[in-house]
């Protein structure tokens, strides 16, 4: 399928440049520090055999790393003019967007994979050995993947709006932050509090991420994440087709 031509081209460009290695390296170094070194989070200092530190901090790191991965997807193609060749090939805009989305998500998965070692280590450290909530951890990984998917979709959308990668990065970070955390805080405003605060809260990503992290895979949370991803990918397709309806 033509979508995979784009997928593999993007993956290749991550690993033939430094981007792929820097993203994975930065994520793992930060995660390692948080898990084992920083006293306020570290498993060794908290004396609980769990991965709460990982799942609590990873979204914050993704908030910056994922926009950095996705910022070039369309902005660079627009800047160099290659977008013109891309959209005149016999492939649909959905395939182009889908290929780029999956490629960015794959890079995030690659950076997450090595953290399985943390699970193994903490499993050994538990007293008694193996005393940790494996179901909750699996749920948290799934939640983190959904969150990453939503961030990637937002990042690609931001990239499709501009031909400047820095603008794409800043816009994506802002949009990710807003959808991740802002609704949580907004819900505590007096006009919402005690009335519609749970509705406002449930628009945000953190509400659903926390819910999945508890280890309960609720279909509402899954539907929420898939909706956010599809919504932003659809917005990207719409933005790509802007030349068609712009007068």
């Amino acid at each position, binding site marked *: 399928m033509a979508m995979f*031509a784009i997928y*593999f081209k993007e993956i290749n460009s991550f690993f033939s*440049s430094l981007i792929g290695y820097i993203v994975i390296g930065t994520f793992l170094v930060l995660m390692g520090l948080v898990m084992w070194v920083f006293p306020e989070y570290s498993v060794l200092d908290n004396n609980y055999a769990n991965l709460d530190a990982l799942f609590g901090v990873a979204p914050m790191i993704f908030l910056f790393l994922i926009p950095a991965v996705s910022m070039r997807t369309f902005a660079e193609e627009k800047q*160099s*003019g*290659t977008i013109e060749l891309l959209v005149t090939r*016999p*492939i*649909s805009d959905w395939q182009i967007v889908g290929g780029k989305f999956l490629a960015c998500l794959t890079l995030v998965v690659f950076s997450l994979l090595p953290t399985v070692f943390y699970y193994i280590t903490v499993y050994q450290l538990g007293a008694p050995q193996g005393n940790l909530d494996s179901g909750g951890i699996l749920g948290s990984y799934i939640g983190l993947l959904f969150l990453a998917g939503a961030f990637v979709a937002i990042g690609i959308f931001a990239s499709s709006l501009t031909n400047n990668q820095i603008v794409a990065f800043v816009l994506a970070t802002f949009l990710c932050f807003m959808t991740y955390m802002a609704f949580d805080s907004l819900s505590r405003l007096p006009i919402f509090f005690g009335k519609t605060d749970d509705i406002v809260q449930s628009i945000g990503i953190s509400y659903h991420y926390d819910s999945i992290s508890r280890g309960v895979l609720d279909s509402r949370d899954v539907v929420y994440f898939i909706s956010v991803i599809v919504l932003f990918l659809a917005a990207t397709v719409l933005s790509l087709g802007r030349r068609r309806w712009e*007068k």
Partner: protein
Amino acid sequence: MSVKVHHLVKTFEAQHAVDDVSFEAHKGEVLGFLGPNGAGKTTTMKIITGYLPQSAGQVEVCGFNISESPMEARARVGYLPEHNPLYRDMYVREYLAFTAGMHQVRNAAKRVDEMVERTGLTSHRHKLIGELSKGYRQRVGLAQAMLHDPEVLILDEPTSGLDPNQIIEIRQLIKDLGREKTVILSTHILGEVEAVCDRAIIINKGKLVANAPIQELKQQFTGQSIVTAEFAGKTDAGQLKKIRHVLAVQSLGGNTWQMTASAEHDIRADVFAFAVDNKLTLLELHKELFSVEDVFQQLTK
């Protein structure tokens, strides 16, 4: 009929970038697109490739309407955009393989090697595109346009920025391609049209002002032929005017005269006869050829 453009209109903010343009391009023909900068050449090409939508009118590529069956039409078009955009951080073969993947070309690796050879990229196939000189980048651009063996090639200023040797090579390549495909190329180098194209279309301010084979274009639009003659002895305008079909006589100094007649008459024989009758020795006699430049200037004033 490979490409059929029917009453094409494109407006940008109430301005007609392309205004009611109709033409056809046939298989085995290189069609030159001429016009001053901003005349609507690039816009027309972008519409044919499906990058921009038209405001009105129809475009058909190999029988597929680009608005109704865009995928079928796009699959049959090879496109080299203006400024030849490329991924600078990809290797030549990698990029061509990527292009093959998007077109679902069968035996992609073999086809890529074929294209590399045909465009003379063999010694550069393992280089980064960003490291290539402009001439070689242009070849990569042509290779990606031809990779899926399209019936129609749309080349927007394929020789811009190349040195004279590279220009000759690329032109030869385009000429070879023109035998089996439909090639539409835009240029503002008028000599290029004469060198490569079978037919020329001239666009000015979005309107089609000429569409004819090059030879015809040169005669039809100037409407007159000019003959220059140098005699050994003196003669005068009055006598020269009596020569059959001569409409105007102009002295170029000394015994050199320029005579104008309508395009359908070749007055050289008459001038020769005049010289013999008047016992004048004819030192020089030639017909001025109109260049595409003249036609172009006349049509796009």
